[in-house]
């Protein structure tokens, strides 16, 4: 029964957040598909959101949660623009491999 009433330390949530962020960085580095690289960025944003919510709980401040709300809205806008850019790049290059997209000029 002691397992059922156990409290979870805030530090564990922060460790999970750090682990997710690191996995996002690894994905950003090793993935070679433009869309998957973009997904790794979303993963990093989510990891940071988790630590914002954990700290909002820790300090009893609602502003931490509001910041997460703003991050979500900006991330949604970022996803729309980023995917539009990916479509535009694909139309010109006909590839999604980041190694072949090595010029800023379309």
């Amino acid at each position, binding site marked *: 029964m002691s397992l059922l009433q156990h409290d979870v330390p805030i530090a564990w949530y922060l460790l999970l957040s750090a*682990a997710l962020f690191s996995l996002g960085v690894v994905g950003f580095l090793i993935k070679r598909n433009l869309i998957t690289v973009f997904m790794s960025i979303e993963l990093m944003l989510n990891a940071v959101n988790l630590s914002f919510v954990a700290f909002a709980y820790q300090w009893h401040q609602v502003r931490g*949660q509001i910041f997460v709300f703003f991050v979500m809205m900006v991330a949604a806008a970022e996803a729309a623009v980023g995917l539009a850019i990916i479509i535009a790049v694909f139309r010109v290059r006909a590839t999604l491999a980041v190694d072949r997209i090595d010029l800023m000029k379309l």
Partner: protein
Amino acid sequence: MHLILFFLFAGLCLAGAINLLLQSHPINSALSLIVVMTSLAVLYLLLGAEFLAIAQIIVYAGAVMVLFTFVVMLLNAGREERTLGSHAAARIGFPAVVAILAVLATVILRAQGLGAVHLGEGLTNSHGSSNLVVLSQVLFHELLLPFEVTSVLILVAILGAVALARRDDEERTAEK
């Protein structure tokens, strides 16, 4: 109960994130990212952020990931190819990432004054009102201007996305 839920969904989160890295097809990566985001919504619920949990599911697991899967299918993205660049990035990147994770974990584990999460005790229970009430009071009184500015940002983003993704008239006539 809290501990079991935490381990279950933290495990799902990490498994989804690792699966995102291991899959070579983008659509599998997108589906594992949905698993990560939905598990994060449950963790938000455990931390007493009910509104954010629902927003996470609607905005991230819903809208953003639908956009991702739509683009993956629209562009017919196939398996990614392993190249020289990816090997070099893996060789240099992995030690760097392990070092970053070690530093972060050390800082977190040695930090003083971090409390514990007690289930059902959100940040607003002391006021006797729900999470949503407290959140909207701060959002619509003190932070009304940033909120409205964000709506303009989203409008600009929509217009920008349409302008970027649509074809030029010259291209279309050239195709004809």
